[in-house]
């Protein structure tokens, strides 16, 4: 019964904190205590609930539908990540939501969202999956509202996409129910196997498209940056870390259990354009375009949200290869991405908490004041860029190798171009925030408190340890591959076994440490170091003074701006969406004029209706 | 229609194009006659090929310059120079006008009192003339009434008297102000021997 605790506790938490919020605004303290207690219990249960057990809740109003929950390896992998991230976010928010920033329903919606996500993961039948998916979307919508007023407008754009995705999913669920007579995954999978290509394509579209919208794949990614960047920064880490990756879970569960591994390749549409190639093309676009858009952002949170879309492309690419290395790379990348993106966003939140802004053009030199946040961001960007010894490198290596050996050279090149774009934009992030001259106004900035530092230290340790010993996570991934019916990856504790490829992170990290020590010896062989102030700087004979802004932040990559002619600032898809929104606004404006709300207009309408009715009746009778 | 860029535009007397702009280049004699006719200054004479010279009293120089610009066709004020006649107690300001059409330089000399050392500004006719005036103000101390930005731009850190005046003895100033070394046969050993040179025994450390 303990796995059902995973559902009951978040629901109870939601009820309690919702009650607390409505009672009075001042009870943030108790709310925080409830939240921490609730989420720690969830984390413990998630760790404990290892074995696969299923339980069903019988008796429901809708005929033929019995709610079935079950914990598989794949869902346990995601549940563990959700538990970890929610626990860290609550810890961070204990410190961040102090002076003045009180969002009463903050913890309530956090509980609700966790309930929704865990529910989606445990659902073993389509209708439960859909209902909990709805709950999750609405909880996300309300959670996104906690932030600046632009957050409200941005979250409505998320709502539009989420509702569209849910409607398509709902159509898919009903279509499959009529075809197979039941909602249960296994029964549905059996009937889908019998489908000929026509209906198979429709089921694929109806089931996969909502998942791609939810995980912000290329054409449908426009809702993510404004929605994630304007909420409270603690939530941005939570959302960017794990919330979009439920879409990836959906893609995996549908591709490999409902449709079966082989269908992707055999479902060919045209010349030899099968489903696999389409998904890989989408993944390639998702990798490259958002990363280069991130290059030109000058707000730290916007930059990171664009990157979390880009990293989604690696996961999708890995899964789409359907080879043992590729799927392992994709799934492992979900964990790595969760670790280093939330680490980076927590560091940005620490800076925002102290300086009040995340505008990259006005920050600078904060390494002198917030070294812990700097270290967190440094570990995070090394992971995000995929440079050894951090964990991002291992999963990217797996994806590259599967692409190259799978015979997709230009997709591998697209992945590498995305990596280069990431390296450029992450350096701009750390340079504009932490390096360069410290402006006068940030002289009194201090380091953040222990509560906010704890998540940063924990995530730094995770990113480094899973980088040196990827085997810890690859073990779970291999079990998932077995349960999905794929050939598991041959892994060792420190990398990939020689039969499959040359990667031994243990050796790489030890060589890195040894050469670092050798370089340090050479360095200390030179003379003593002489620390000088930042104003003791070369300025071609000019006297550097405090009033002069002696930083290079603005328009950091101007050469790329020339090459791409600002194309990445407002690409065509955005203009298309803008046109749609404008049309919608004009229509609603017209509707607003009809319902004016004054009594006499309604009298006029009813009179006109009566006259019309009389005319028609005369004709008919 | 006042030109927002240059507020002085409206008050500019040179509204209409110079009458004598077109036509062939005139000889020096024709120019002297034209100057006498248009500006009423009689004693402008031929000085050398393409050089005409004459003197103007201080108070009607401004009207002379406006007439030279608009009616005689000398659009270009190439320079204002200053000569210090210390014995006569006067400064002599020389305004050099140039005509593109006639390729001829007309220099108008005018004398102002050395003690008072004030002169009407000409920047309302030629905006760049303010640099000539600031230069003369810096170097000679002549104050140009009406010129608003007369602060230093060559001798920014200078707080001594105007250095180009005859009564300013540069050698004495240099001798007192700067350190220098008397001649010493093995002066280079003193300096290069890795041992500090004579601590300014030469010049006074004043």
């Amino acid at each position, binding site marked *: 019964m303990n796995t059902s605790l995973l559902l009951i506790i978040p629901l109870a938490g939601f009820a309690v904190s919702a009650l607390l919020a409505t009672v009075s605004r001042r009870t943030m303290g108790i709310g925080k205590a409830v939240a921490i207690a609730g989420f720690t219990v969830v984390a413990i249960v998630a760790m404990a609930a290892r074995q696969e057990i299923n339980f069903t809740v019988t008796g429901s109003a809708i005929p033929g539908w019995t709610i079935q929950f079950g914990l598989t390896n794949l869902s346990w992998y995601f549940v563990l990540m959700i538990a970890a991230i929610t626990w860290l976010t609550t810890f961070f928010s204990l410190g961040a939501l102090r002076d003045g920033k009180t969002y009463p329903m903050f913890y309530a919606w956090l509980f609700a969202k966790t309930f929704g996500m865990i529910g989606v993961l445990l659902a073993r039948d389509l209708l439960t999956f859909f209902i909990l998916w709805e709950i999750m979307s609405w909880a996300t919508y309300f959670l996104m509202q906690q932030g600046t007023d632009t957050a409200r407008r941005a979250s409505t754009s998320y709502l539009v996409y989420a509702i569209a995705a849910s409607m398509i999913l709902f159509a898919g669920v009903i279509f499959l129910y009529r075809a197979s007579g039941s909602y249960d995954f296994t029964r549905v999978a059996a009937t889908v196997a019998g489908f000929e290509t026509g209906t198979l394509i429709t089921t694929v579209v109806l089931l996969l498209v909502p998942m791609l919208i939810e995980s912000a794949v290329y054409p449908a990614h426009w809702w993510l940056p404004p929605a994630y960047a304007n909420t409270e920064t603690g939530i941005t880490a939570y959302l960017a870390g794990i919330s979009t990756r439920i879409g990836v879970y959906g893609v995996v569960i549908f591709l490999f259990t409902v449709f079966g591994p082989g269908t992707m390749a055999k479902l060919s549409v045209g010349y030899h354009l099968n489903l696999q190639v389409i998904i890989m093309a989408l993944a390639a676009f998702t990798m490259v375009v958002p990363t280069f858009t991130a290059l030109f952002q000058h707000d730290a949170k916007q930059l990171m949200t664009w990157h979390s879309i880009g990293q989604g492309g690696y996961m999708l690419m890995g899964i789409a290869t359907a080879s043992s290395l590729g799927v392992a790379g994709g799934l492992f990348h979900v964990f790595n991405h969760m670790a280093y993106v939330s680490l980076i966003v927590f560091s940005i939140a620490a800076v925002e908490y102290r300086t009040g802004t995340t505008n990259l053009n006005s920050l600078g030199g904060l*390494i002198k004041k917030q070294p812990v946040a700097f270290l967190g961001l440094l570990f995070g960007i090394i992971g995000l860029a995929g*440079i050894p010894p951090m964990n991002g490198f291992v999963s990217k290596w797996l994806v590259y190798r599967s692409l*190259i050996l799978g015979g997709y050279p230009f997709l591998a090149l697209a992945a590498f171009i995305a990596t280069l774009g990431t390296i450029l934009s992450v350096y701009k992030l750390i340079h504009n925030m932490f390096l360069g001259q410290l402006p006068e106004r940030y002289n009194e900035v201090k380091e953040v408190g222990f509560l906010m530092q704890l998540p940063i230290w924990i995530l730094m340790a995770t990113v480094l340890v899973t980088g040196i010993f990827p085997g810890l996570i690859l073990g779970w991934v291999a079990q998932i591959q077995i349960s999905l019916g794929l050939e598991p990856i041959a892994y060792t504790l420190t990398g990939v076994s020689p039969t499959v490829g040359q990667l031994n992170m243990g050796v790489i990290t030890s*060589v890195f440490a040894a050469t670092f020590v050798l370089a340090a010896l050479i360095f200390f062989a030179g*003379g003593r170091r002489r620390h000088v102030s930042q104003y003791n700087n070369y300025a071609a004979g000019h006297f550097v003074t405090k009033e002069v802004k002696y930083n290079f932040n603005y328009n950091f990559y101007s050469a790329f701006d020339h090459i791409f002619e600002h194309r990445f600032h407002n690409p065509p898809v955005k203009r298309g969406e803008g046109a749609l929104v404008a049309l919608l606004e004009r229509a609603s404006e017209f509707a607003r004029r009809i319902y004016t709300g004054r009594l006499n207009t309604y009298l006029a309408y009813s009179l006109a209706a009566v006259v019309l009715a009389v005319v028609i009746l005369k004709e008919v009778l | 229609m006042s030109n927002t860029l240059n507020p002085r535009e409206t008050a500019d007397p040179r509204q209409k194009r110079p009458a004598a702009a077109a036509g062939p280049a005139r000889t020096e004699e024709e120019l002297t006659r034209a100057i006498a006719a248009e500006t009423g200054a009689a004693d402008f004479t031929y000085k050398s090929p393409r050089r005409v010279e004459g003197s103007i009293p201080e108070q009607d120089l401004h009207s002379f310059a406006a007439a030279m610009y608009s009616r005689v066709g000398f659009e270009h004020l190439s320079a204002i120079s200053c000569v210090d006649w210390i014995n006569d107690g006067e400064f002599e300001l020389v305004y050099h006008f140039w005509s593109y059409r006639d390729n001829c330089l007309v220099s108008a000399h005018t004398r102002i009192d050395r003690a008072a050392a004030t002169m009407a500004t000409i920047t309302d006719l030629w905006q760049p003339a303010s640099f000539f005036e600031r230069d003369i103000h810096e170097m000679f101390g002549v104050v140009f009434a009406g010129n608003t930005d007369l602060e230093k731009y060559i001798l920014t850190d200078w707080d001594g008297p105007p250095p180009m005046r005859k009564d300013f003895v540069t050698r004495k100033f240099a001798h007192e102000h700067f350190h220098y070394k008397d001649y010493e046969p093995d002066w280079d050993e003193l300096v290069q021997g890795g041992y500090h040179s004579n601590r300014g025994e030469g010049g006074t450390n004043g």
Partner: protein
Amino acid sequence: MNSVNTGIQLVVWIIAYPFIAFTVGVFMGGYGRKFTARLQRRVGPSWVQPFFDVIKLMRKRTNISHGYMHDVAMMMLVGGTIMTLYFIPVPGFTYFAQYGDFLVIAYLILVPSLGMALGVGETANPNGSIGIARALQMLAGYEVPFVLTFIGMAMLNGTTSMLDLVRIQQSGGMATWGIVTNPLLGIAAVMALQGMMNEKPFEVIVAPHEIATGPMTEMGGKYLGMMFIQHLINLFVETTIYINLFLGGAQNWVELIVKQFILFTLILSVNGVFGRFRTDDAVRFMWKVPLPLAALGVVGIMLGIG
């Protein structure tokens, strides 16, 4: 490529290898300055001038530092380059090459540039930041064609390990060299190498007249010495990577050094006669000429003719 060495021989190689690479790098650097001087009909400095420069820099009495990150970054810079060295197979020392393939090397090469970027950022000088922005944009410029050439070679030989690539190229003597089997990839890689080694016309990073030697503006004393050491070892690393990929690696050190100097002479002769591209023109060149060439080569491989 003789058998994998073990025991004492391995320990000796591990200790001696960086110093061998540094010495070869010094001679290459000295040769480079002598070659450029002779191009300009000058006598030119001594053959080991970089060695004197490094000695002078390391013995400077003042070493201006702008913070601990500035120091750590210099260690990361030299440490990163020496680390990349160990994973490149060279005649007689291939022990570490079996633990990291070319993808590992492609990422390890980024560690020194990231280290330099962090160090230069810490010195809080806008000239340095502009230099680093240019360096990273140039990196994106030349890295794309170079990696595509590697992807082509890896797909052709079915392996991403540089050790296997060298073994395959040496199996048939000169006929199976990478540049002979697919010349398009070889030529594209040489152009990308010109950018990777920061030789003119791709030297916009340290443009002395515009941004006061870019990243090196605030580096003095032993900090500049560390950058020189990294640059010299980098000469060895980058030329050896190209040789292992396209010129069939080397059976003995004489062959390796001869190939390195020939390749370096080619790059120096281009460096000696060219001006300096602007950053966006340099990146455009890299994406207009070597990239399509490499793409053509890869398509050739995919269609089986390559």
